[in-house]
C-alpha cells in the first residue's frame, strides 16, 4: 500500500470516527452551541418519568401574524388580565417571556384519585425582587428546600363543597432567567434534578424520540403518555373501555401566517392502529361533509390529511388553519355581537 493510499484511508476513517463521535456526544447530552440534543435546555429540569411534556415558544407565538389576528378575538377581560400582570409584577407576556416548558408528573400506576402534580418552567426576563415582594404581599410563605428559596402559597379552591386547598409554589432556577411554577412536591423534584439526584427526561429514549420527531419546525409541541392520562381523567368505566389502546401521543404546531399542526398517536399494536385509523378517517369524512356548505370551514376540512405509519403503529392527522379562516371567524363573531 502506498503512503498516499494509507494517508487517504487514515483521513477518511478519521473523519468518519470524528463525525460519529460528535453525533454520539450530541445524542448523549449534546455539545453546547453546536450539536445540542432535541428540545430546549429546560428539559434538564424535567424528570424522566414525566407523563406529559410541552413546549411553547412564546416570543414567536406572540410575534406571529396569527397571534395578531387572534388578538382581535380576545375578550377585554383577557387583555385587562395581561395589563394587571404587567403592572403588578412587571411581566409583559408579549415581550418578557421567551418560551415555556410544562410537564405533568404521574406514575404509570397512579389512579384517578391520586393528586396531580406538575409545573411550568418559563425562560425570560423577570424582575425577581418585584415578583418575590408581590408573592409576600399576597400571603406567600418563603421556604427553603436544600438551600434553595421557594415561595409557597396556599390557594383555597373554589370548591366550597369540599373546602380543598391547592398549594402552589414558585422558585427561580437560574438567578432571574428561569422560573418554575407548580405544586410544591413537583418543585422539590426540580430542585433535586439540579443536584443531579434523579434522571432527567433526556434519559427517557421514548419521550426524547417523540420530541425529536415533533420539534423540528414547530414552535409549540406536546408529547405524553395517553394511557397514564386516561387513568387520571376521571372518565366513566364505560368510556375508558371504549378508548382505543393508545400508548403515546404527540402534537406540534407551527404558528406564523396561519397554523399548521400535526397530531399523532401511537397505538399499542398494529390492530389497534388500524382500528384507530378507520375511526379517525370516519370523523374526517364527517367533518368534510359538514364543512362543505361553509366556505370558511371548508378550507380547514380539506387540509386535513390522515397518515398511518405501520412501522411504529402511529396514526397522524395534519391540518392547516389559514389566516383567511380566522378572518371568517372574526366576521362571524362580529355578526353575533351586533345588536339585533
Amino acid at each position: 500500500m502506498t503512503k498516499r493510499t494509507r494517508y487517504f484511508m487514515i483521513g477518511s476513517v478519521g473523519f468518519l470516527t470524528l463525525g460519529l463521535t460528535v453525533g454520539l456526544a450530541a445524542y448523549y447530552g449534546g455539545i453546547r452551541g453546536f450539536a445540542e440534543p432535541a428540545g430546549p435546555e429546560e428539559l434538564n429540569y424535567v424528570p424522566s418519568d414525566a407523563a406529559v411534556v410541552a413546549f411553547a415558544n412564546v416570543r414567536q407565538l406572540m410575534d406571529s401574524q396569527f397571534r395578531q389576528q387572534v388578538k382581535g378575538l380576545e375578550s377585554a377581560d383577557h387583555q385587562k388580565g395581561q395589563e394587571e400582570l404587567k403592572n403588578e409584577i412587571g411581566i409583559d407576556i408579549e415581550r418578557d417571556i421567551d418560551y415555556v416548558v410544562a410537564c405533568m408528573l404521574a406514575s404509570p400506576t397512579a389512579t384517578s384519585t391520586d393528586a396531580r402534580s406538575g409545573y411550568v418552567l418559563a425562560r425570560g426576563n423577570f424582575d425577581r425582587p418585584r415578583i418575590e415582594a408581590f408573592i409576600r404581599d399576597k400571603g406567600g410563605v418563603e421556604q427553603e428546600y436544600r438551600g434553595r428559596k421557594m415561595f409557597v402559597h396556599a390557594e383555597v379552591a373554589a370548591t366550597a363543597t369540599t373546602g380543598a386547598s391547592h398549594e402552589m409554589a414558585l422558585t427561580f432556577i437560574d438567578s432571574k432567567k428561569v422560573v418554575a411554577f407548580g405544586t410544591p412536591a413537583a418543585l422539590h423534584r426540580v430542585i433535586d434534578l439540579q443536584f443531579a439526584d434523579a434522571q432527567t427526561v433526556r434519559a427517557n429514549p421514548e419521550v426524547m424520540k417523540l420530541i425529536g420527531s415533533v420539534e423540528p419546525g414547530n414552535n409549540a409541541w406536546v408529547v405524553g403518555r395517553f394511557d397514564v392520562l386516561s387513568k387520571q381523567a376521571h372518565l366513566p368505566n364505560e368510556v375508558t373501555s371504549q378508548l382505543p389502546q393508545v400508548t403515546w401521543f404527540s402534537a406540534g404546531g407551527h404558528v406564523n401566517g396561519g397554523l399548521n399542526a400535526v397530531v399523532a398517536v401511537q397505538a399499542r399494536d398494529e390492530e389497534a392502529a388500524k382500528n384507530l385509523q378507520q375511526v379517525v378517517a370516519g370523523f374526517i369524512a364527517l367533518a368534510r361533509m359538514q364543512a362543505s356548505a361553509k366556505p370558511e370551514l371548508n378550507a380547514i376540512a380539506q387540509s386535513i390529511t390522515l397518515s398511518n405509519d405501520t412501522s411504529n403503529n402511529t396514526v397522524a392527522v395534519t391540518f392547516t388553519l389559514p389566516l383567511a379562516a380566522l378572518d371568517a371567524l372574526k366576521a362571524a363573531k362580529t355578526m353575533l355581537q351586533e345588536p339585533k
Partner: protein
Amino acid sequence: MAVESIPAAPPVPARATRPPSFVTAAFRVFDLSLGQMLWSRRTIFLALVVSAPVILGLIVRILTSVGIGGSVRLGGSAVVAGPSIFGLFIWLLYLRFIIPVLGVFYGTSLIADEVEDKTITYLFTRPIARGAVVVGKYLAYLAATSLVVLPSVMILYFLVVPTGGGSLAAAFPALVKDLALLGIGLAVYGSLFAWVGAQFKYPLVTGLVFAFGWEQGIMVIPGYLKRFTIAYYIQGLVPHAMPQDSALSILQLVVRDSLSVPMSLFWLGFIFVLFLALAARAVSRREYVLEQ
C-alpha cells in the same frame, strides 16, 4: 605432492515455496488493488457522483440560512426540516442511484479491467487461488467506495440536519442506520456485479440494464417479481432508517410493501454470499483468451 582435499560445499536446501493461504492471498490482492482503484480515472467519476449530494446539501444549507424555504410546509410539518431532507437524500440519491451506479461501475470492472488491460495473466500466474483474486479485488472495491461514500454522508448530515429546526442528536440513530444501510448496499450490489463482471461478455451494459432497467421497472409492478431485485430487500430496511415525518408519508406509501427487517437482512446476506461465491467460481473455471 599432497593434494588438499577441498570439502564440498554443503548442499543448499531447496527453499520451501508454499503458496500463501487463501486469506493471505486475498489480502495481498486487496493491498495491491486498493491503491490502483483509489488513484484511477474512475475515482474522478466516483468523486463527482458523491459530491453531488454534498453540493445540493450546501445549497439547502445556504438557502435555509438566508431564510428561503423556511416557511415551506406540508401538512403540519416543515418540509425543510433537516432530518426530512437528509432522509430524502439518502433514499433518492444514495440508495436509488449512487450505490447501484458505483456497484455497476466498480463491481463489473474488478476482473474485466484486468482482462481489458491484458494484465490478468500476471495475477493468474501467481501461486494463489483465483478465487482469492476476486475476493481481494472485491474487498478493495468495498473499501474504496465506502471510504468515499460514507464520509460524504457524514458531511451531508452536518450540513443538512441542523436546518429547519432539526437536531443532530435526534437524527443520530438515523445516521447510524443509514451508514449501515449504505454499507450493506455497497456490499450486496458489489457482489452481484462482481459476478456479472466475471460471467458476462459485456458486463457494464448488463449491469446498467439490471440496475436502471430491471430494478427500477419491476419495483413499480405489483407481484412477486420484485423479489428478484436487490432494491426490494433494501427497501425493507429503509422505512426504519428514514425519519418518521408526515411530510414523507408519500414516500412511505411507496415502500410499504416490503419485507420485515430480519427477512430483508437474511436475503441480502444470502445474495451477497451467493454472488461472491459465484464470481469466485466463474473466475476459477473460466479460460480467459486475451485478444492480441
